[in-house]
């Protein structure tokens, strides 16, 4: 098993054109084995790009191909409308990798999904996507760094540390059920707790790696969830242990303010909750290897 996406996931790429990021990554996703069944583009309905049929709208794409997931890479000004189009058409799982969407747009999109389309799960924006190794890869993760077969589930706020952690596991011969990059934006559609709950419920996932970073309080919430609702072992790493306080390190999400939000506070909360806390991604892989050996 896996969470959110599997071999039955059929992906529609929104905003498909031959030169788009969506096309580049969508083709890589297809080469990995993902069912990429359609694209949409209001100006290219009826075309076929690299063997992918293009429709004018997501609704048409669903009617013609049975698409049940969408992949959005369109620029920030158009991404909120694309997410809502997918939700209105009934897509249950939307992956949006677009970076630099204004925070207020994200807040409105999330509030609209919460109120009017509770059946749609948004992953992102500004995230690397999701990979259920051997089944489906939606997003920008290089498929070869992941290993199929489980038993580890992985969730990360940072994109590149997500790759790093997947790769550490793969090099040790430890497979993954699903890896989810939730992104570091102010209003992520899917959070740590959503993923931890899904991994806890997934029978094939036996242990979880969670990669957080400084700023916000999501890791602290995750710690409470781990303490109260999880019996599977969790290994964690928080990026930014050595970051100077008060400086914004690139991500809208990675801002340290006061004591809540610091790496030390997050690590303490997670340790308190019973999670194993690594000092760097390599150590997270090593700790997980110990956990897997004892399963």
């Amino acid at each position, binding site marked *: 098993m896996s969470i959110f996406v599997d071999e039955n996931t059929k992906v529609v790429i929104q905003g498909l054109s031959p030169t788009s990021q969506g096309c580049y990554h969508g083709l890589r996703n297809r080469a990995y084995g993902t069912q990429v069944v359609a694209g949409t583009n209001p100006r290219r309905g009826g075309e076929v790009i690299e063997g992918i049929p293009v429709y004018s709208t997501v609704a048409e794409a669903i009617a013609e191909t049975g698409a049940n997931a969408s992949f959005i890479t369109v620029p920030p000004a158009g991404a909120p409308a694309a997410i809502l189009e997918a939700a209105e058409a009934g897509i249950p799982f939307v992956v949006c990798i677009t970076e630099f969407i204004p925070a207020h747009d994200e807040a409105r999109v999330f509030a609209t999904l919460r109120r009017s389309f509770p059946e749609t799960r948004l992953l992102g924006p500004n995230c690397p996507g999701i990979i259920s190794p051997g089944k489906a890869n939606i997003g920008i993760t290089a498929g070869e760094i992941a290993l199929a077969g489980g038993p580890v589930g992985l969730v990360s706020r940072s994109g*590149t540390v997500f790759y790093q952690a997947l790769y550490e596991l793969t090099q040790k011969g430890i497979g993954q059920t699903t890896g989810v990059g939730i992104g570091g934006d102010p209003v992520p559609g899917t959070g740590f707790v959503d993923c931890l709950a899904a991994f806890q419920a997934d029978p094939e996932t036996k242990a979880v790696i969670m990669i957080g970073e400084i700023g916000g309080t999501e890791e602290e919430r995750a710690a409470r969830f781990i303490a109260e609702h999880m019996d599977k072992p969790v290994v964690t790493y928080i990026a930014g242990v*050595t970051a100077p306080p008060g400086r914004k*390190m690139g991500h*809208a999400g990675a801002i340290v303010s006061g004591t809540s939000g610091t790496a030390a506070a997050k690590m303490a909360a997670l340790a308190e909750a019973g999670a194993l806390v690594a000092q760097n*991604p390599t150590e997270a892989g090593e700790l997980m290897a110990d956990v897997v050996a004892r399963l």
Partner: protein
Amino acid sequence: MDLLEYQGKQYFARYGVPVSDGEAAEDVETAVTAAERIGYPVVVKAQVRVGGRGKAGGVRVAHSTEEARAAAEAILGLDIKGHIVQRVWVEQATDIAKEYYASFTLDRTAKSHLCMLSARGGVDIEQVAEESPEAIARLEIDPLDGIDADGARRLAQQAGIDTQAIDGVAGVLVSLYRCYEEGDADLVEINPLVLTTDGRVHALDAKVTLDDSAAFRHPEWEVWRDLNALEPRERLAREKGLQYVGLDGTVGIIANGAGLAMSTCDVVKQVGGEPANFLDIGGGANAEVMASALEVIATDEKVRSIFVNVFGGITRGEEVAKGIVQALERVHIDAPIVVRLDGTNAEQGRAILAEYGSEQLISSPTMLDAARRASELAAQRA
């Protein structure tokens, strides 16, 4: 982008949040002329991005031309915690009856907006929050609903705002929310929000943080983009579209993604090195961006070794490698460069570096190895 007080007040005014009449000045004569026009008494306030200016002598009241001149002379050029005052804001003085606090920001946990209002303004609000949290009224606002006058009035009552100020405060909250939302701010804060002795409510201070991602729909922000406020290297990085934060060490860090850049700093520190900076080349960086990153690092004399740590996703390995080669050909870089490349097209990238064949370039198989290597080299070359 954090606005200075006077910029924040100008932004408030656009959305109808009442502020005092005032003018910004960069020299004494302009400040005096402003004071004459506004009429005495005036307050002359240092415009710096650091707290505690009042205690440092950065705020003075003037009742006459002579006093205005003396105040501007004293404040312009003043060193406030390492920030030299280059600009003052001269505004009409206000007779304060009461001081309140008001702010809007995003509550990331609730994924809603949060309004905080307190009848105890004018002091450190974090201290109030800690010592008497009940003194701060909070309202969660659904982004689809916003806040209306009735909701604002109820919140003002709940916060214990004086009866004669309730309507005024509610009006400010509605305008301030528009400034926050339509104005694409991450934070708007007024401390103090004052009730004057003649019964008006207005903003005596302004703290505004704009969401840089929304700059594409706010051409009016351009005038505030004060690159001079940054350190020269940070400015160079910003101009090249890189996220750079200077640190104190000797190992120059370049990574893709904020998380990996932070993680790279962590690992360098754990193996005994000291990061000289945090530098994120972002997602999807091409050769040009990579070359720019090396150029920025090359201007830092503290740097003894450079660690390029790239895990390609949207960023492609061959572009990173091409960028490194480009940088070596066009700028002089003394420091050895330890490169760790994995992910999308990493093999192509490694091949390009191997073919270039410079002794200065050291490929390293893992992040931990590369961190050790770069830290050792920095120590040897100290």
